[in-house]
């Protein structure tokens, strides 16, 4: 939303401030100014000159030499413009002046173009006559400007006067960000009212009086609203003897500053009123309205309608239509029809100013695929009172511009206008709520400036119809606060009962996961929570795999972003692939992400969201590197029992011989493994990839930060090495289970120090060697203690088919 300062000042006559002051003050009172441009930017030393004589250039066919009276003197200017004649009044840039752009109307250079006296083909030229493009504007906004050549002022322009002023370019256009609760501020008058209150100046809105011709509009047209749920008010007035012509310059200038292209008086009036009042209007050619009857009703499913831009639009039964006695003539609030379009030969016009249901207009515009200026107003939900004010303003302008004759009266179909809201005035509560000590009188003064009426007898504030956003106490407090100044409200800290700041246990576990992963060389990655359903094929998941049951987005950004992940590894594999593709070496990543598991499909309740600790790497390291990270983590979150690794995990995306599910006690807490080479191919990673996943909610069940000091061993340890020939199928895990079960309390630790398969060992076997460390806490071990424990262990190992090597 844009407004010109000059237009604001027309209704806030006492306003006097710099552009920046206006910006800052309006922003701090709640009408955020996004920025502003001066329309006279880079326009320097430009006056109105009159051409007194024109001669041919002696040495150039396409140039002419003009003598131009600039008031104080007559100067010589050489130009190539084809359109000037003796007597023309034109904008002249003097030596040392500046224009905004080139005559081609291309993008404006930041610092404009400096103009200096000089010679053109040997003839002195002391300035330049300008086109509208050189003045930084365009023929769209100045329709009277010639297509090619110098802008020409009306005959009555004053020679020597400021040309920029005469063009209405001594102005500033402000751009606002209006919040969607302030429907009234999508209009010049709304912003002007805020400006008046902000600068504490009187607000003088236009006085609207219509003389009319004494006839009764009801003799011209009747209106019937069938679907009153979608149209709360429909106002209609008629103007006759219409004479289409350009609108006056002042109106063109104001429209141009608001970014609206002037067309002709009738169109300009409706656009002008829309900008000023925030109420879109529509003008029908009454002679094309069959039966001179307007019917407002829903369309029928499958109806097709041609809008005035010539396009065919498909309708449905939720689209509200404006119809005449026979047919549909406009889509309510969105666009009129081709069949009732105003043409230059129009004589009688029907003005419509209505209030349509905002959400319905928004949805219709979306479905039809046509969001217009009008619909973007209506969808905010307009004030029915304003419709009447706007239509009267339009009729006033018809009279003022000599555009036609206004028929008396207004057809007004109005279901109900909401009674004005009243809110109790509670000054102490407001101060308590804001933490301020604002005097009651100041609050009342603010209300008055905002046109909120205070009734001392009831101690209530009457809310005007255009402030539908003010509903209760808190809203009133905001009005007080923003005009008192947010910056003047003190800063305090909440008092009251102390609370304990804390992180949840889960968050602390996650933080430990980050620490351990990072110590182990992994960097944290983040990936989107939604992915493509093709991921499951990439990961070789069978068609009936439960992971394929997903939470699916109905309106995704595309299929590739359509399902909420049920498997945690695609993100990290994609990131690893990107790194591999960019030739980054030895990349280690971890992620803490959620998987989203539907409890039932279609979703009837919220899915389960489980945080996963995911690690992945390629480059230096192997399966056991990854296993090491997992065990570091488990140890640091107090899971000190030995985790069990089940190689029969059967995950299709992992190497069949290099994967394991991880159990803690009897409970699966995650898995790890090398990526299946086919999956690595699917991700275009040309090397081995290792991944690990730990389910954080399960980890949380077992984790603890409680620790107990266990003493430092005082008595000497006894070590024994055992060297074994082990059947190939026996896993280290099985051997270690025997060691820990049979070693008794005195077995402090064990460590594998050699494993070998090959020539010296017979087929089907491998050689393994462990160091066992025995120690008692309370005494020096006797040889017999160790021997007894060793016997038990060796018996157990024999049961696994293991032989001791001598």
């Amino acid at each position, binding site marked *: 939303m844009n407004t010109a300062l000059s237009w604001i000042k027309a209704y806030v006559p006492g306003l006097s401030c710099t552009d920046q002051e206006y910006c800052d003050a309006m922003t*701090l009172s709640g009408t*955020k100014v996004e920025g502003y441009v001066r329309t006279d930017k880079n326009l320097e030393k430009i006056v109105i000159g009159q051409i007194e004589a024109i001669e041919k250039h002696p040495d150039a066919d396409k140039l002419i030499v003009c003598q131009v009276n600039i008031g104080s003197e007559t100067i010589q200017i050489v130009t190539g413009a084809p359109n000037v004649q003796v007597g023309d009044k034109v904008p002249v840039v003097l030596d040392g002046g500046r224009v905004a752009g080139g005559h081609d109307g291309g993008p404006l250079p930041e610092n404009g173009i400096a103009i200096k006296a000089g010679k053109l083909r040997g003839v002195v030229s002391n300035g330049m006559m300008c086109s509208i493009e050189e003045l930084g504007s365009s023929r769209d906004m100045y329709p009277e400007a010639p297509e090619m050549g110098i802008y020409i002022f009306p005959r009555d322009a004053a020679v020597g006067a400021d040309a920029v002023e005469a063009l209405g370019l001594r102005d500033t256009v402000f751009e606002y960000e209006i*919040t*969607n609760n302030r429907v009234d501020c999508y209009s010049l008058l709304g912003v002007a009212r805020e400006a008046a209150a902000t600068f504490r100046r009187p607000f003088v809105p236009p006085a609207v009086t219509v003389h009319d011709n004494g006839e009764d509009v009801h003799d011209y047209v009747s209106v019937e609203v069938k679907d009153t749920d979608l149209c709360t008010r429909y106002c209609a007035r008629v103007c006759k003897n219409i004479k289409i012509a350009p609108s006056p310059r002042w109106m063109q200038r104001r429209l141009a500053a608001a970014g609206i292209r002037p067309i002709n008086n009738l169109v300009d009036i409706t656009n002008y009123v829309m900008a000023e009042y925030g109420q879109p209007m529509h003008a029908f050619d009454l002679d094309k309205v069959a039966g001179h009857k307007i019917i407002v009703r829903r369309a029928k499913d499958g109806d097709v309608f041609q809008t005035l831009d010539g396009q065919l639009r498909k309708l449905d039964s939720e689209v509200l239509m404006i119809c005449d006695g026979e047919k549909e003539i406009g889509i309510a609030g969105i666009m009129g029809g081709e069949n009732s379009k105003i043409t230059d030969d129009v004589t009688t016009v029907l003005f419509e100013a209505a209030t349509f249901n*905002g*959400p319905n207009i*928004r949805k219709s515009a979306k479905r039809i695929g046509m969001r217009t200026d009008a619909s973007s107003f209506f*969808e*905010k939900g307009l004030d029915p009172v304003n419709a009447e004010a706007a239509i009267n303003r339009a009729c006033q302008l018809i009279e003022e511009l000599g555009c036609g004759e206004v028929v008396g009266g207004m057809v007004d179909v109005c279901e109900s206008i909401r009674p004005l809201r009243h809110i109790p005035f509670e000054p102490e509560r407001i101060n308590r*709520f*804001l*933490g*301020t000590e604002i005097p009651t009188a100041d609050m009342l003064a603010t209300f008055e400036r905002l046109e909120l009426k205070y009734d001392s007898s009831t101690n209530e504030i009457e809310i005007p119809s255009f402030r539908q956003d003010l509903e209760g106490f*808190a809203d009133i407090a*905001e009005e007080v606060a*923003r005009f008192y100044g*947010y*910056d003047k*409200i*003190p*800063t*305090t*800290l*909440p008092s*009251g*009962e102390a609370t304990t*700041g*804390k992180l949840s246990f*889960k*968050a602390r576990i996650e933080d430990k996961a*980050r620490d351990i992963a*990072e*110590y182990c*060389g992994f*960097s*944290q*990655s*983040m*990936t*989107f*929570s*939604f992915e493509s359903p093709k991921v499951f094929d990439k990961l070789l998941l069978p068609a009936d795999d439960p992971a394929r049951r997903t939470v*699916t*987005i109905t*309106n*995704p*950004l595309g299929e590739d972003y359509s399902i*909420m992940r049920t498997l945690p590894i695609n993100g990290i594999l994609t*990131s690893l692939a*990107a*790194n591999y593709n*960019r030739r*980054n070496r030895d*990349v*280690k990543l971890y992620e803490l992400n*959620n998987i*989203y598991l539907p409890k039932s499909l279609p*979703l009837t309740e*919220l899915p389960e*969201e489980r945080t996963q600790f995911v690690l992945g790497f390629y480059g230096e390291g192997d399966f056991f590197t990854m296993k090491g990270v997992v065990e570091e983590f488990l140890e640091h979150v107090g899971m000190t029992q030995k985790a069990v690794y089940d190689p029969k995990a059967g995950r299709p995306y992992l190497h069949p011989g290099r994967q394991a599910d991880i159990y803690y006690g009897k409970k699966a807490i995650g898995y790890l493994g090398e990526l299946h080479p086919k999956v690595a191919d699917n991700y275009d990673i040309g090397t081995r990839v290792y991944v690990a996943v730990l389910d954080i909610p399960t980890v949380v069940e077992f984790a603890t930060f409680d620790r107990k000091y266990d003493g430092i061993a005082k008595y000497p340890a006894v070590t024994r090495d055992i060297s074994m020939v082990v059947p190939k199928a026996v896993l280290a895990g099985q051997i270690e289970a025997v060691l820990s079960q049979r070693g008794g309390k005195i077995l402090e630790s064990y460590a594998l120090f050699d494993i070998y398969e090959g020539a010296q060992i017979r087929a089907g076997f491998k050689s393994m060697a462990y160091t066992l460390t025995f120690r008692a806490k309370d005494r020096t071990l006797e040889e017999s203690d160790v021997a007894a424990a060793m016997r038990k262990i060796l018996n157990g190992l024999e049961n696994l088919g293991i032989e001791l090597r001598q």
Partner: protein
Amino acid sequence: MKERLEKIKEEVLRQIESSENLEKLNEVRVFALGKKGALTGLLKGMKDVAPEERPKVGQMVNEVRAELEGRLEERKAELEEFLREMRLKSEVIDVTLPAKKNQVGHRHPNTIVQQEVERIFVGMGYEVVEGPEVELDYYNFEALNTPKGHPARDEQDTFYISEDIVLRTQTSPVQVRTMEKGKLPIRMIAPGRVYRSDEVDATHSPVFHQIEGLVIDKNITFSDLKGTLAEFARELFGPDTKVKFRPHHFPFTEPSAEVDVSCFKCGGKGCRFCKGSGWIEILGCGMVHPKVLTMSGIDPNEYSGFAFGVGLERITLLKYEIDDMRLLYENDARFLKQF
């Protein structure tokens, strides 16, 4: 006897002086003081000394022994010192050679900022809580005073799972879930992922993070909101940070404000990060709307509160001068290692 003693002494002293290493010195010690050494040998000759002379000779021998021992120790210390010097000289390294690093990984910049924010608020007595990302429409909109048909719904470009279930567009639903639990007073922050259907580009991402804050208690004021966020801004951006509150609108707070901080890159003078204005918008906030309190079962006549929402990525990008939001989700190792 005395002469022999003198001779031994001189000979030993000479040998001590000429010993160039500890082994040699030890040989001298053995030669002089050992069981079969010169002095011992000399003492064996005591039987030839007159008995009345013996104490005197014994004393002389002991004096020589003491002197030699002393000198041996000195020489040993000298040699050790010399050898240490030699070793140190020979062990000079080029300290500018590359380090052997343990290659510690790097935390994601979003997490670094998030944890910094958490640290500040935990210090002020706030609890860090979580809420679901796949959320009921009720919590994401309805209970936040944004009924169906409200224009704010369109602005937020919501991803829908079903008519009643959405990907949350903000962390604000956690406010409602926390209030509904009914435990007062409340001081919480809720960091988390949020979703809006924006196409990916340098400044937009359909997945991003917010940090929600909520305080509910008796007598909470707008000035408390200002004071709390000013404190937060100074902690996060530095003690000289200034804060500007601008009126704004959110459906679930009233009064509402947007908060700018004085640009932490240029200190407010104006630079490319603050687009020359000297201010950077960092969050939205306001007093919890009475309707929201009522819907969550809290009496607005008894309790009041404030809420705020910070865009995490926005701060991350500004703080680390990251010029493209996509970098945050590409996870290029060369990017991550810079944090």
